[in-house]
């Protein structure tokens, strides 16, 4: 069997790559290890639409749950005291969706464009010909040959590791996301979160929700369900976590300040996924080799700023670029390393998503500052707001509340300001 392009993995990157390559007339095979499209897909819950629209032209028929009309960011201290910033009234560019369904929709688009989709096939290795050029994939002892391979295998880069193209993943480069989907009903979603019909909420929480571990929690509303979960930086968590991660997500679900939102709901699914903690750092040194391109999570195309994550849209974008590059390479003498560098890697490195990954890499690094951001500042905030709002005999000014909180929590206000400045400068 021989194809112009073989795409490994039918996630957002792989499906977009297959769609783009097939749209340009290439004979494309899209290989997926799961049963049917989407069955192995996990993410948090929100997708920014811009790059999907750019790649696909439109979102017709996309399985959108809700367009996000309300954004919340909460800082929670260890005592459960919470300060929340809420943003609404803007014009939304993001929607919530189940990735199982969104990936299936993307695969349908690829198939409509002419790609051949094969599921239940786990690729075991990337094959090279005697000249060292990547020439196909091997699955269960069978070889499929292709002019070019697009590796969209995801965050666990088993194939790239085996091919010697990337090092074994380090705990320092990865974050673990765990998620529960709770069904409460459409009316309840809107009533409990104060949403208009069809409107969605995106809510990020940091601090006590992870027991002070670097990372955060998220809540996204779907049509009649709520997705809630935790993201933990693997290295810090592996060293400091005191109870199993499955117990921590249950602690989140039963959190006194949160459980009323999904009280009496049924937990209908429990899921887990690794993600690059800092996409920039996770990126392979080279995104191309002779006959090979890497896209999506495997390429580190994920931006994590603590309060926002861009993974699915960046994956679609990089996959789409790779698919287009496969077409352009054919018209230019084939997918040699040089051609693919010029047609995929360099344009990707010049693109807005890539430049943002580079520009914002300092924020990701600052997030590792751990304790200060995830335990001590939430404690400072909790103490300050308590003395501002929980009034008894005396009424402190904001200044007195802050100074009292600094004393109570043992955190210097100056230090906090310096950190804020350093954080701002690193951007």
């Amino acid at each position, binding site marked *: 069997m021989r194809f112009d392009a073989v795409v490994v993995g039918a996630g957002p990157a792989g499906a977009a790559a297959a769609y783009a390559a097939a749209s340009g007339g290439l004979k494309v095979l899209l290989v997926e290890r799961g*049963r049917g499209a989407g069955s192995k897909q996990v993410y948090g819950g929100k997708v920014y639409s811009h790059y999907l629209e750019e790649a696909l032209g439109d979102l017709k028929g996309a399985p959108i749950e809700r367009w996000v009309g309300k954004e919340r960011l909460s800082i929670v201290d260890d005592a459960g005291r919470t300060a929340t910033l809420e943003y609404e009234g803007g014009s939304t560019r993001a929607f919530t969706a189940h990735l199982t369904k969104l990936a299936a929709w993307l695969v349908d688009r690829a198939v409509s464009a002419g790609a051949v989709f094969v599921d239940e096939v*786990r690729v075991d290795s990337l094959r090279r010909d005697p000249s060292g050029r990547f020439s196909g994939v091997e699955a269960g002892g069978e070889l499929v040959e292709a002019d070019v391979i697009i590796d969209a295998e995801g965050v666990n880069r088993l194939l790239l590791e085996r091919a010697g193209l990337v090092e074994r993943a380090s705990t320092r480069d*990865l974050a*673990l996301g765990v998620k529960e989907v709770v069904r409460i009903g459409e009316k309840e979603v809107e009533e409990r979160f104060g949403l208009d019909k069809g409107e969605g909420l995106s809510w990020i929480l940091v601090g006590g929700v992870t027991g002070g571990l670097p990372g955060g929690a998220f809540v996204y509303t779907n049509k009649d369900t709520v997705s809630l979960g935790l993201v933990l930086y693997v290295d810090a968590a592996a*060293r400091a976590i005191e109870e199993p991660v499955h117990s921590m997500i*249950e602690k989140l679900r039963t959190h006194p300040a949160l*459980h009323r939102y999904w009280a009496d709901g049924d937990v209908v699914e*429990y899921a887990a996924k*690794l993600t690059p903690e800092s996409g920039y750092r996770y990126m392979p040194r080279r995104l191309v080799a002779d006959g090979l391109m890497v896209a999506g999570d495997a390429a580190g195309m994920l931006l994590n700023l603590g309060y926002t994550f861009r993974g699915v849209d960046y994956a679609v974008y990089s996959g789409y670029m790779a698919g287009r590059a496969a077409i352009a390479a054919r018209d230019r003498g084939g997918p040699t390393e040089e051609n693919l560098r010029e047609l995929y890697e360099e344009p990707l490195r010049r693109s807005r998503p890539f430049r943002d990954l580079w520009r914002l890499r300092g924020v990701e690094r600052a997030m590792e500052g751990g304790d200060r951001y995830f335990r001590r500042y939430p404690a400072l905030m909790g103490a300050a707001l308590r003395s501002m709002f929980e009034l008894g005999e005396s009424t402190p000014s904001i200044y007195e509340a802050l100074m009292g909180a600094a004393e109570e929590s043992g955190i210097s206000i100056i230090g906090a300001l310096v950190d804020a400045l350093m954080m701002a400068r690193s951007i």
Partner: protein
Amino acid sequence: MSETAGLQRIKVEDLLQRDSWDVDPRPHIRLNAEKCAGCPTKPCTRMCPAGCYVEAGGSIVFSYEGCLECGTCRVVCPMEAIEWDYPVSGRGIQYRTA
């Protein structure tokens, strides 16, 4: 954070019951017991979201059936004692809404 009456935490075994599976009789994870025995910290017992690794009498008892296929155990194992791949033939976890 305290627990609230009427809202008990769900045990991981019951949490996993909410998912759909097609378990492969052939394990997709292999544990090197010798390497594993020398591990002082055993982060797999806390970091595996499916609770696949349980410490019993000083050693790890492990099951692959409830694996969510995230790959965390492979990277957190300080002994590199875990041989990990995805299940074949579409077996394993079958996500519907994730």
